[in-house]
């Protein structure tokens, strides 16, 4: 008879393995880049351990290369990762009455990918903080290991084998399909995507993600309220 820890672990792994698949090549690529920028594998591992945010780590390394000040790097990283505030807000709905210490731990692992997977599981039902933590940490271990390996591997660039570069994109597409539960959400997604594309063309960096999604969500809310107003 399987213990409940084993069950929780296998559930988390079953949900999280696509993230690991995606994180490996990206992590290794980051490690290689960081090594070229003069970082030692231990320093690389330290960054991945403390930050655990892929896109901002890439930016940080390029800023380190160009001699930016620590303050400017930290501010930039803050802005890039601000979208996780929105993601945690959504997840909080499913984590009411959770133990404070577990929330402290869970917060560490909130990334685009773990958010999307955990949210989809929470909305399906039968998912708890324990399983969600497994997803976060399996992804985390894979990320740290990948980046450190990349740091050591240096010249050995991974082959773009079996389309592995598409793993994360395919994952996001699938999770978006899961989230778009009805015509209204289709419109919201289209609005958000269009705004995001437009913004990304004029504003450098990642701010288009927060701006576009906040804008689209607000439009959705306004539309909801207007429709309700018309019925009274």
């Amino acid at each position, binding site marked *: 008879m399987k213990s409940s820890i084993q069950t929780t672990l296998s559930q988390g792994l079953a949900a999280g393995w696509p993230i690991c698949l995606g994180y490996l090549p990206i992590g290794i690529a980051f490690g290689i880049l960081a090594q070229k920028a003069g970082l030692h594998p231990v320093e690389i591992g330290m960054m991945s351990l403390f930050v655990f945010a892929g896109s901002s780590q890439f930016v940080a390394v390029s800023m380190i290369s160009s001699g930016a000040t620590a303050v400017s790097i930290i501010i930039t990283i803050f802005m890039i990762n601000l979208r996780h505030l929105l993601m945690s807000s959504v997840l909080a*709905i499913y984590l009411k009455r959770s133990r404070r210490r577990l929330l402290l731990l869970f917060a560490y692992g909130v990334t685009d990918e773990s958010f999307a997977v955990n949210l989809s599981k929470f909305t399906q039902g039968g998912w708890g903080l324990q399983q969600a933590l497994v997803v976060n940490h399996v992804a985390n271990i894979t990320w740290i290991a990948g980046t450190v390996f990349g740091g050591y591997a240096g010249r050995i660039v991974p082959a773009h084998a079996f*389309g592995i570069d598409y793993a994360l994109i395919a994952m996001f597409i699938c999770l978006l399909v899961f989230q778009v539960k009805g015509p209204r959400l289709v419109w919201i997604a289209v609005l958000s995507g269009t705004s995001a594309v437009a913004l990304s063309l004029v504003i450098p960096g990642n701010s288009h*993600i927060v701006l576009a999604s906040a804008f689209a969500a607000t439009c959705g809310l306004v539309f909801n309220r207007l429709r309700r107003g018309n019925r009274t």
Partner: protein
Amino acid sequence: MIESRYVWLVLGMGLVTYVPRWLPLQVLSRHQPSGLLVEWLEFIPASILSAILAPVLLTAGEPKMLSLMKPELWVAVPTCLIALISRSLGITVIFGMALFWLAGRVL
């Protein structure tokens, strides 16, 4: 050995990354968020996923320009269909990867 300057840098980076992830969990799981906020948040997942994906599929280059020619975009159409039909993350990811790999060989 590792400079203390670097340690302070990654600690600072870690802090500014961690706090936005933690704050909503701490505040919103304890206090009852307003109906307005919950309604707004319900639109966020679809919006955020779309806002992350759309530029990746539709823009390219330095400086960024609209592009309809990326193989990522072309493969996204069948991948989307597979997601709709299979309703399975694993199957979608595997098929998406295979299609993208094929696209790399054919195009």
